[in-house]
């Protein structure tokens, strides 16, 4: 056994302080050297839509001797070791037509070792990537109408070299008559086979494809030198009908971003938009594109889907924050070196913030919708995350992509999960308020955005940063103890929503849900009584979450249970809400739930008489309304 840099890194991540390298894999360490044997040739046959199978043939130039092939594990944007190797199948490796034995590294299941025979200059690799057939198996990547091709799922690459120094030549065969969109540049087209220009393996993985039967391209920046498009793929042609009024705010988004940052980091950009209720949902950022999955009726039921619209501002913002500027510890030399996520509260937190703010500036949202969403977010960090108020902090949640990997959680509110997104947005709202306070309204977070993300127009080579870089940029705008300001919020258990009041608004709770809460309830099919009974319930009575130490929790309600009846009447969201209201009017009335857990039934009485509670923002008359200033188009 030999020790490697990678092995040590894995041990540090997985086994903490255990130093002895007794469990090390056999994968060569990454060197910053070009991959000398030559360009990877990757061909994907994506025509088998019926079986949802991607068939891959890959030629990897290689010198004789040991060769380790890696299937990408740490996928940028996922921040977690979740490359879908469970759906990788049928691996055969040949050299000069002769099958080579392969072995999987027992300590690194993403690594395959082969021995390249003398006289061979390349290996031919064949395998299949099996898309999930249904949601419970993972993300469905092929439907009868469209497919999502992510190169990390359909390629392997040689270990030992920086992925920016491995060249790749990719091609794909699509079902007849389908069209494709990708940030890759086309070299040639032969029938249904598209051959793309050679590019670094790193950039290839960053340039996924969306293809389908029903496609429409919308120009989001007409006349611009640097084109920005929205490529729509839909379950049916009728869903492609976007009206000029609907396109307008998406176009405005581009201009607002340019005004904010004053620079961009791509040669061209496209929103790979799936309008589908079949393809697995997605929101994944790339330098020159993003994968944006919304419901099929995103345009045709425009009002109903209003709350999805910040997906576009969010993923687009990542081109600056996340792709171009990236935490130094997150920037890895290949896709199988562990990432460290300590700065995700910038990467995702500030992107969450700008996603919401830019949705308002671009008129994707009205100011009221934006305020409702800020109220919803603020309530979460006011009363909805007892875990953050007690045992866990926002900083620690940046480890959650690796810990929970987005698996469903039993006590989401207490465990906390990827809270660096929305809690991060709350912190940045607070930073904005502080800048305004310190500068007498002259400086705002817009100044930070321009200074931190708005350099080197057109450059899209990753520009890394550390915590200290964030602090010094803030100090350059307005000197202050920004390190303490941030660390208090990131590492503590104290309040996170001070920014709301600082911007002249107060978080209140009333018995009427906001339009945003109503829309969220409709989309999730649940009844959100988090701030009253302390639980949320799905359509069929299945309990989604029970607020730790809340009234329902104290009465014995658990999240695995199903509400069968409320005060003796069959469960419906209305029956439950009516019972809460009745118990507030008449304090002697209980909220009695008939619950089913596994095969057992029990009745619990919840001693709660304070009525329904939904979050809203209310103006503080004595303070100026800087929130509206923040949301105002530039």
């Amino acid at each position, binding site marked *: 056994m030999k020790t490697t840099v990678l092995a040590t890194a894995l041990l540090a991540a997985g086994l903490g302080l255990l130093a002895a390298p007794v469990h090390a894999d056999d994968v060569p360490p990454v060197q910053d050297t070009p991959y000398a044997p030559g360009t990877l040739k990757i061909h994907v046959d994506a025509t088998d839509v019926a079986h949802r199978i991607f068939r891959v043939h890959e030629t990897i130039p290689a010198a004789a001797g040991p060769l380790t092939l890696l299937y990408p594990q740490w996928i940028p944007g996922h921040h977690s070791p979740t490359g879908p190797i469970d759906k990788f199948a049928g691996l055969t490796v040949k050299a000069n037509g002769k099958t080579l034995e392969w072995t999987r590294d027992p300590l690194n299941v993403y690594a395959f070792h082969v021995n390249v025979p003398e006289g061979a200059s390349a290996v031919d690799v064949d395998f299949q990537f099996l898309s999930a057939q249904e949601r419970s198996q993972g993300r469905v990547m092929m439907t009868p109408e469209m497919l999502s091709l992510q190169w990390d799922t359909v390629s392997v690459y040689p270990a030992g070299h920086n992925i920016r120094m491995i060249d790749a030549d990719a091609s794909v065969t699509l079902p007849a008559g389908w069209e494709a969109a990708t940030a890759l540049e086309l070299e040639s087209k032969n029938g249904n086979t598209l051959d793309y220009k050679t590019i670094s393996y790193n950039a290839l993985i960053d340039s996924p494809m969306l293809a389908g039967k029903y496609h429409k391209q919308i120009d989001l920046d007409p006349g611009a030198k640097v084109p920005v498009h929205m490529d729509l793929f839909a379950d049916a042609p009728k869903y492609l009908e976007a009206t000029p009024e609907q396109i307008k705010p998406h176009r405005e988004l581009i201009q607002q971003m340019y005004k904010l940052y004053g620079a961009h980091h791509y040669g061209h950009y496209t929103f790979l938009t799936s309008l589908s209720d079949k393809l697995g949902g997605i929101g994944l950022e790339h330098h020159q594109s993003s994968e944006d999955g919304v419901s099929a009726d995103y345009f045709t039921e425009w009002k109903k889907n209003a709350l999805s619209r910040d997906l576009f501002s969010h993923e687009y913002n990542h081109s600056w924050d996340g792709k171009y500027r990236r935490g130094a510890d997150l920037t890895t030399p290949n896709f199988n070196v562990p990432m460290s996520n300590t700065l995700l509260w910038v990467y995702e937190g500030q992107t969450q913030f700008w996603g919401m703010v830019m949705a308002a500036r671009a008129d994707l949202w009205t100011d009221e919708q934006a305020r409702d969403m800020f109220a919803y977010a603020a309530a979460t960090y006011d009363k909805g995350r007892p875990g953050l108020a007690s045992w866990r902090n926002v900083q620690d949640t940046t480890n959650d992509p690796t810990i929970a990997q987005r698996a469903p959680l039993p006590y989401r509110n207490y465990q906390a999960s990827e809270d660096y997104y929305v809690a991060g947005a709350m912190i940045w709202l607070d930073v904005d308020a502080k800048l305004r306070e310190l500068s007498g309204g002259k400086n705002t977070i817009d100044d930070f955005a321009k200074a931190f993300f708005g350099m080197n127009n057109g450059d899209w080579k990753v520009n890394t940063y550390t915590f200290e870089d964030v602090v010094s940029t803030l100090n350059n705008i307005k000197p202050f103890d920004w390190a303490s300001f941030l660390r208090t919020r990131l590492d503590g258990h104290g309040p996170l929503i001070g920014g709301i009041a600082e911007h002249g608004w107060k978080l209140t709770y009333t018995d009427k849900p906001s339009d945003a809460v109503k829309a969220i309830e409709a989309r999730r099919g649940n009844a959100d009584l988090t701030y009253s009974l302390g639980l949320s319930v799905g359509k069929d009575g299945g309990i989604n979450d029970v607020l730790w130490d809340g009234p329902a929790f104290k009465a014995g309600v658990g999240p695995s249970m199903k509400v069968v009846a409320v005060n*003796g009447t069959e469960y419906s969201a209305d029956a439950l809400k009516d019972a809460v209201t009745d118990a507030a009017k008449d304090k002697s009335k209980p909220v009695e739930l*008939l619950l089913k857990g596994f095969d057992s*039934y029990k009745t619990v009485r919840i001693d709660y008489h304070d009525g329904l509670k939904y979050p809203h923002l209310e103006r503080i008359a004595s303070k100026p309304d800087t929130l509206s200033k923040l949301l105002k188009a530039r």
Partner: protein
Amino acid sequence: MLGSAALSVAAAVASLASGSTVNVDVDASEISRRIVHAKVSLPAKTGPMTFTYPKWIPGDHSPDGTIAGVVNMRITAGKETVAWTRDPVEMFAFHVDVPPKATSIEIAFDFVTPSDGGTLSGSNMGTENVGVINFNQLVFVPENAKSDDVTVKARLTVPKGWGAGTALPGTRKGDVFDFDAASLTTFVDSPVNMGRHFKRFVLDDKHAVSVAAESEAALDVPTDVVTEWRQLVAEAGALFGGARHYRRYEFLVTLSDHVDFFGLEHHESSDNRFAERGLIDDDKRAYYASLLPHEYAHSWNGKFRRPADLWTPTFDMPMQDDLLWVYEGLTDYWCGVLTARAGLWDASQYRDSLASIAAAMAHRSGRAWRSLQDTADAAPLTYFGGGGWISFRRGTDFYPEGQLLWLDVDTRIRELSGNKRSLDDFARAFYGMDNGSYVTKTYTFDDVVNTLNQVQASDWATFLHDRLDYTGSELPEHGIERGGWKLVYTDTPNAMDKAMEKVRHGVNLAYSLGLSAGSNGNIYDVQWDGPAFKAGLVPGLVIVAVNSKDYSPDVLKDAVTAAKAGAPIELLVKNDELYSTYRIDYHDGLKYPHLVRAKGSDLLGDIATARK
């Protein structure tokens, strides 16, 4: 119920159209869509005319003709469209004005059934793979025409390539049957079953079984069963004195899980419908085994011999059902006897079936207010009552209790005659005449009593009335005891009840907790004044949980057993959208009926023994 003056005079059977020929052309090629097209050509004379659709269907004993399924009716005379109106009182009668010079009218219509719901011949008639038609669905008749006097010339198209079975003589070319001219009585009495998967089992030169099924696998009938069918034919011949009242006999068997369980007797055939795997699955075969013998026995008892007041010359005239305890009750008795004698059941299965019937009838709380006779008199109600409270309302009890009544008679004859004579002698005397004739021979109550007296002198009128007219809390029939057996209850179901629970996926706790329920907790029935009733339960509620555990038939049974030690039985029950808990105070455990040997000789054994 009859309003039209012309129809209400029962004796006024006109000769207007008697002796004439009605042409019927039926296209059943779309029976999978549950649509059958028909054209009926009626002889007509210029001027006002009334014609009717069969209303009182022989064997249904009720005015349940399928008029609701008649759609798209259009009438022409030559090329001329003829307007029609329905009689405002009698929904089965239509009036037209026949144009000058016309000698016939043609009634074109479609007949449809629902895929689910509907009753008897108004229920589902077709699936992708099978279909059944009864010609009463597809014919119109001149008003008051005697069915014996009307001749029908019919043609039938079946779905392409399907097999079909019928007793109606004729020739088949391709998918078209050209039937020989037949009386309207015989036409309506001769259904056709058809299927994509079809097999005809020839038993001998006069008997065959035509099976239409949902699958090829369902046709794979064990050879033993075919042997037992032959035994059935032989045993029936022996029982009924060698006389057969048909030219040849066709058992029509339609096997589908999407067609309602059904059996309808005819002179020369029977229409038997049951589960797709009813002939190949052992439990299901045992459960359905008695259907063919029942309908077959009807050829003698019901079709050939028929109560005088039940027999009618037309299909418009009301039937009287007071002797159904003979028509159906005695048939049910012969059915048990023949099923056992043919070997379709063994002696213990026969006894199990008697035990189940006896227990059910012993728990008919409705006997307190209603006599067995009334269940027959009110047959048009009891067939269609539906819903719960079956034990208190009483249903068509003239079948099961009728069977017990005739067992009582049989054992009584054996007792009085020192076992020299039995009800078999009655059978010979009552049905054994006119071999080959299928002209109905009617009888009255007195004829039944007289024939019994010929076999064994006794006061049979009093014997029968004591049981038929009885109201009270006891089961008035005692044939089981006289036959050397006794009804007892244990905590294990008998083999037939077990098979029934397997087939019907429910639980019958009528004799313990006092309720029966489906696999989903639907309460089918609650025993009036029983423990469940006293706790407040009623039919139609849904049991959600038993002692806080998710309901299943087994969980409920386990709770009944556990309650013997004193624990309560607590049911969480859903009533529309309301949930509430019921405590049943019952601690006597599970109870299932069985027969055990008692004193005296084993007459049940003698009765079940094959004659051939």
